[in-house]
């Protein structure tokens, strides 16, 4: 899991969620890319973060795209965040004895008719789902992210405040991790739109 490096964090706010990842892609100590995003949109209201082995990151993002497209066409509706989280869990468990080396983070809002309720979830590499109310962390800087999030997060943060909080959480955590960093990207999902910002950080 420490071959390529990278970290992701997601947080719940008031009628919004945020998910952020660093941009580093490395080969152990050697950094080979500084534009490797680990967050991928699933629908307009759901984004998945995939830190871990880069080849599995790419493969899984394409696999989820395939499965969600099939779902959308077959069901004639967009997938909901919790349903997608279960899909992630069962997809990973399919490879129980030869797993994908990623520990996904999911962030989204339910559909407007259900109240646009914020949703976050995390799974381990074989699909164990956790559904916390506050934040989810994953990746090589996960320990540091836990510490930062635990101290900085508070409930009912608005979109702007949540952006500040999640950005500080990520930046300061990855600065303490050799395998994460080299820039970051943050998405804030609100009922109207997704606001994406790229952060300038320490390039080391």
């Amino acid at each position, binding site marked *: 899991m420490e071959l390529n490096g990278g970290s992701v964090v997601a947080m719940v706010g008031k009628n919004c969620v945020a998910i952020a990842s660093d941009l580093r892609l490395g080969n152990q100590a050697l950094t080979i890319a500084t534009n490797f995003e680990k967050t991928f949109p699933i629908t307009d209201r759901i984004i998945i973060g995939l830190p871990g082995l880069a080849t599995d990151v790419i493969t899984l993002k394409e696999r989820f795209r395939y499965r969600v497209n099939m779902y959308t066409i*077959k*069901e*004639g*509706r967009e997938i909901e965040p*919790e*349903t997608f*989280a*279960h*899909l992630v*869990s*069962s997809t990973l468990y399919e490879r129980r004895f030869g797993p994908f080396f990623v520990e996904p983070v999911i962030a989204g809002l339910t559909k407007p008719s*259900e109240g646009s309720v914020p949703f976050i979830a995390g799974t381990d590499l074989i699909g164990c789902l956790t*559904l916390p109310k506050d934040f989810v962390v994953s990746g090589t800087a996960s320990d540091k992210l836990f510490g930062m999030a635990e101290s900085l997060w508070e409930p009912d943060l608005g979109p702007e405040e949540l952006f500040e909080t999640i950005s500080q959480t990520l930046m300061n955590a990855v600065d303490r991790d050799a395998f994460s960093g080299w820039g970051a990207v943050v998405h804030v999902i609100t009922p109207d739109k997704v606001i994406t910002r790229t952060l300038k950080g320490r390039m080391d």
Partner: protein
Amino acid sequence: MSAAGGGGAYSFSLTTFSPSGKLVQIEHALAAVNQGTTSLGIKATNGIVIATEKKSSSILIDDSMIEKVSIICPSIGFVYSGMGPDFRVLVSKARKSAQAYWKIYGEYPPTRVLTQEVATIMQEATQSGGVRPFGVSLLVAGWDSDRGPSLYQVDPSGSYWAWKASAIGKNMVNAKTFLEKRYNDDISLEDAIHTALLTLKEGFEGQMTEKTIEIGVVTVPTSEERVVPVGGRVKPTFRKLSEEEVRDYLAL
């Protein structure tokens, strides 16, 4: 006519096109359905009722053990007209399909999706070697959060479509005419149940009692009922009426 090796006379499909473009086996399957006891379904604003006659060929049969209205998953139920054993097999496959869906998505399939799966199974029996089409038509009633209550009919050919109210089986023509007169888009579930009973009564041979009919009902959950406790089970929206409940409705 037989082919050498690999399955012999049964290796090719028994449903082959006639010159007029029909699949005669499917026509025959529909004839089997039309010989079956009448079943009907009515969609109301706040639910669906499906019902059927439970006709036994002998008074010695223990008809409390017959199950013609079957639950597939907490939100979907089936009723049929036609061959009982074929229905049993389809119910079994539908239940498995619903559980497979649950295993992937953590929730039960919407009515339309499950209907599609069952319809596909029925279609495969019209285009495979060595099998015959299923001799049943199904009425599928269910509730899901996307489309609310929905009622579908699936035929032996595998085609399916949604109904507001429909009947299948022996008395379907009269029953549908009856329903056309009595149905309106604002009908409530209670009225739908009464209408269903009246419709069944029209073509009923013999005494219509709580022991000779089966009724299944789909209700719309309230927003509290829709909340699933963590690690808990979703509250069923489809259920079969007990004999006492049926008796009460018949008495009215």
